[in-house]
């Protein structure tokens, strides 16, 4: 069994890469490996949006990531610097910045880039999906 980490740079519904990453993560767990961490960086932070509302006949990406967390304990880490710039704020960041609503909820977590470095060092494999 190997520990996998994914680094996702691509926004949902703009490029195939977010779907490719989800499909790969599902394959990782289906083959008995551990899908340990998904780190959302660059435009990939939009995958964590709690406000995402795709048409019903399309894959709901945020739900796909949440399912991995619920069923396999996958950490869903969103880069705080990349996220705040692009409007991904949890309740405490929204309050800190004095904005009315938040757009990111658990199990997604806002974290620093240090967590990406940590994921790289503590996983057996790090696979990047980019637009």
């Amino acid at each position: 069994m190997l520990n996998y980490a994914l680094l996702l740079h691509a926004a949902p519904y703009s490029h195939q890469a977010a779907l490719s990453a989800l499909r790969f993560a599902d394959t990782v767990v289906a083959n008995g490996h551990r899908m340990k961490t998904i780190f959302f960086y660059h435009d990939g932070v939009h995958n964590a949006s709690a406000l995402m509302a795709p048409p019903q006949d399309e894959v709901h990406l945020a739900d796909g990531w949440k399912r991995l967390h619920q069923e396999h304990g996958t950490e869903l880490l969103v880069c705080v610097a990349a996220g705040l710039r692009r409007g991904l704020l949890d309740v405490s960041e929204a309050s800190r910045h004095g904005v009315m609503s938040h757009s990111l909820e658990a199990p997604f977590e806002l974290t620093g880039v240090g967590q990406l470095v940590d994921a790289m060092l503590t996983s057996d494999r790090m696979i990047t999906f980019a637009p």
Partner: protein
Amino acid sequence: MMLHLLNRSPRSTATYQDVSEAFGSDDHLLLIEDACYAAQPSAGAALEPFGGRVSVLQEDLVARGLAKRVDPSVEVVDMNGFLALTETHERCVSWF
């Protein structure tokens, strides 16, 4: 031994050049997403630097209508094959 993931159409020549500069003699290239178009015989020159150590992802090929247009030198792998390549190659880098 390194696995290189590439997702750009062969018309993105600068990206293909960057991969070829970093591609070692034991390395392997996996074409995914729009890089599937490079698996056609008509795109042959794009894959020359990779010495036949090239695979392409079946699901992405089929979706693009390319299933019957694959050059015989390129190996077709499914998602389990993609995962297997990441198992056998300790390191994986992505070019985009």
